[in-house]
């Protein structure tokens, strides 16, 4: 039966509108892909994030080759990369890497590799793509300054960077709705006080606030704790925008008839807020939330750049970019900026997704 605007459900209408927004749809696809990477990190990465080979410092990316030439002139089809022979040249300050045709490193799917704990549940050692011999190393996107595989590290960083965004946004959401809702619903002095606090928070320049809050993190804290505290810092600044929006909407809705009716009915304020007011702009909230995540991701990279964010041994895109942030990397090892590409893709995808959601959010607009 053909669905028309007349008899379609709310959800169907939104989905149809959403699909029309092509960029938004693309964003949606890429976002799913990235989060899948975050979930299956260890399986997708050829190596673990910290194994290194000292002689492969700043090794360039190895192109994948397909035909193996044998001495007799025979050729065989076997995907592989060629290992490196390297030598340090003090005069030029470079380590020269030359592909050695005798060092054939065959590649395969579902190979055994570095052991890992899948989601902390059970040990596993298979990787989707990698060298068949687990002691070999392959650098699809080159190696960094300690000889660690850039691709593997970038993939591992995906998990941290994408979830920091989530956790931070979730905290902001809760804070924003609660505080904004209270402010908008009760009005008067409560509103006044909260607005002043918001204005103060928004007027302090962000960087001193970050540094000040970061100084409160004990330096001896384990990485997980630091990670958590960083997300708290990010959300402390993020909630104000959402709170203002929520407040504005609440103030507009407060005078609607159905809300008045609900109040007269004797409903408690929290119930009114949760049951009647929130669903009204739920789609708007979703959109705003989606659009806040990329902000968190970028904020995390900025914090790492300033030196107050995450640190080794935790890897996030910010940490990786901070390691690459020097002229030497640009001029002699540009593959170190792969995490930057990852950031761009993630941020763009989330942005387009959010735009698409917002556009699709009000199917009764026309």
């Amino acid at each position, binding site marked *: 039966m053909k669905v028309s605007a007349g008899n379609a459900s709310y959800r169907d209408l939104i989905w149809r509108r959403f699909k*029309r*927004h*092509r*960029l938004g749809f693309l964003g949606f696809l890429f976002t799913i892909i990235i989060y899948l990477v975050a979930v299956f990190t260890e399986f997708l990465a050829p190596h673990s994030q910290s194994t290194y080979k000292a002689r492969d410092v700043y090794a360039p990316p190895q192109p994948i080759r397909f035909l193996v030439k044998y001495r007799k002139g025979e050729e065989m089809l076997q995907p592989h990369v060629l290992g490196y022979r390297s030598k340090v040249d003090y005069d030029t300050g470079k380590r020269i890497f030359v592909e050695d045709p005798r060092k054939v490193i065959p590649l395969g799917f579902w190979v055994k590799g570095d052991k890992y704990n899948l989601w902390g549940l059970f040990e596993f050692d298979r990787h989707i793509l990698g060298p068949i011999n687990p002691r070999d190393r392959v650098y699809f996107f080159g190696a960094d300054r300690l000889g660690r595989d850039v691709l593997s590290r970038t993939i591992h960083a995906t998990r941290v960077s994408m979830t920091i965004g989530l956790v931070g946004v979730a905290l902001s959401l809760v804070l924003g709705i609660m505080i904004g809702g209270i402010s908008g619903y009760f009005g008067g002095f409560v509103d*006044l006080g909260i*607005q*002043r606090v918001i*204005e*103060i928070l*928004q*007027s*302090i*320049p*962000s*960087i*001193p*606030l970050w*540094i*000040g809050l970061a*100084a*409160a993190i004990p330096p001896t804290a384990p990485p997980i704790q630091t990670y958590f505290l960083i997300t708290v810092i990010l959300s402390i600044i993020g909630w104000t925008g959402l709170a203002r929006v929520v407040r504005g909407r609440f103030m507009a809705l407060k005078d609607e008839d159905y809300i008045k009716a609900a109040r007269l009915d004797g409903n408690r304020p929290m119930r009114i807020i949760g049951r009647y007011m929130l669903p009204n702009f739920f789609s708007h909230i979703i959109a705003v939330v989606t659009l806040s995540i*990329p902000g968190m991701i*970028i904020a995390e*990279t*900025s914090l790492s*750049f*300033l030196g107050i964010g995450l640190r080794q041994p935790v890897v996030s895109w910010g940490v990786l*970019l901070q390691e690459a*942030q*020097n*002229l030497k990397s*640009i*001029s002699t090892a540009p593959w170190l*900026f792969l995490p*930057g590409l990852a*950031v*761009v*893709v993630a*941020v*763009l995808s989330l*942005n*387009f997704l959010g*735009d698409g959601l917002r556009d699709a959010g009000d199917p009764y*607009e*026309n």
Partner: protein
Amino acid sequence: MVLFLVRRLSLMMLTVFVITVISFFIIVLPPGDFVDRIVLEANQYGEVFEQHEIDDLRRMYGLDRSAVEQYLIWLRNILFHGDFGYSFGWDVPVSELIGQRLGLTTTLSIATLMFIWIVAIPIGIYSAVRKYSLGDYTATFVGFVGLAVPNFLLALVLLYISFRFFGQSVGGLFSPEYVNAPWSFDRLMDLLSHLWIPTIVLGTAGTAEVIRKIRANLLDELHRPYVLTARAKGLKETGLILKYPVRHSLNPFVSDLNDLFVKIISGETIVAVVLGLQTTGPLLLQALKEEDLYLASSLIMFLSFLAVLGTLFSDLCLMALDPHIRRQAREGEMM
């Protein structure tokens, strides 16, 4: 109306005061002070301070007093002498440092703002008018890429390109021969030739937001009855769009202007650090890292004051433009 202004101004003062207290104590409370920094840095280069030298230094900088005492002295000096204190790291009065950098910061901010408008407004309009077209997607994509690339990364890459391939001087908004030279046409050209990097980096980060806003506002406007009427009347499309909908959709700009401005001023820190520009951002960052107490507190106070002022300014503009809001203000609803 007057009552409104008085209320707002007094609230502003309160806000700024609270911010000064917060910023001062954020810096003072963590363990370690400026003298510790000096000693640490010196140790890294092999110098050894004897204990009495360290004590002397503390006395010299007034850091042997309690935090509250230091704050009150600082506040008193500002209010009664207009003296913002002394910068430990630079050994000059704070006001000298801020004054010098203000000009460049303002120039950069204005240039960025203009860049954003010039790029974002046409893209936003086009994107709204030709919704879901290929052109829409392309333009939006371009506008958003700037947002997605981390600023510090883009700045470093552009820096490298500028000196490697264009032979430009680095580390400032002027080439060495023009830094202290008097103003001239050549000096202006030199400034522009250096201004492009930070402007592009900061500008591209800001265009996405603006494109989005314009697009949304214009889309709202375009569905209004008066537009339908104008079309029915046979007015040409371009003129029609530019005459009313666009102007109306620009109204919210007034309210967002200060927001944008503040974002630029605080956003320029990272870019200016990477490019080595002498603006207020890096000054504040260094002051915070070194616990250069008075410089950092004064700068934070100053920037916060600007932000709060900006809010007031935009509210006033809104009132001037929109009678509804004027009424709200008069009736005391709007605080």
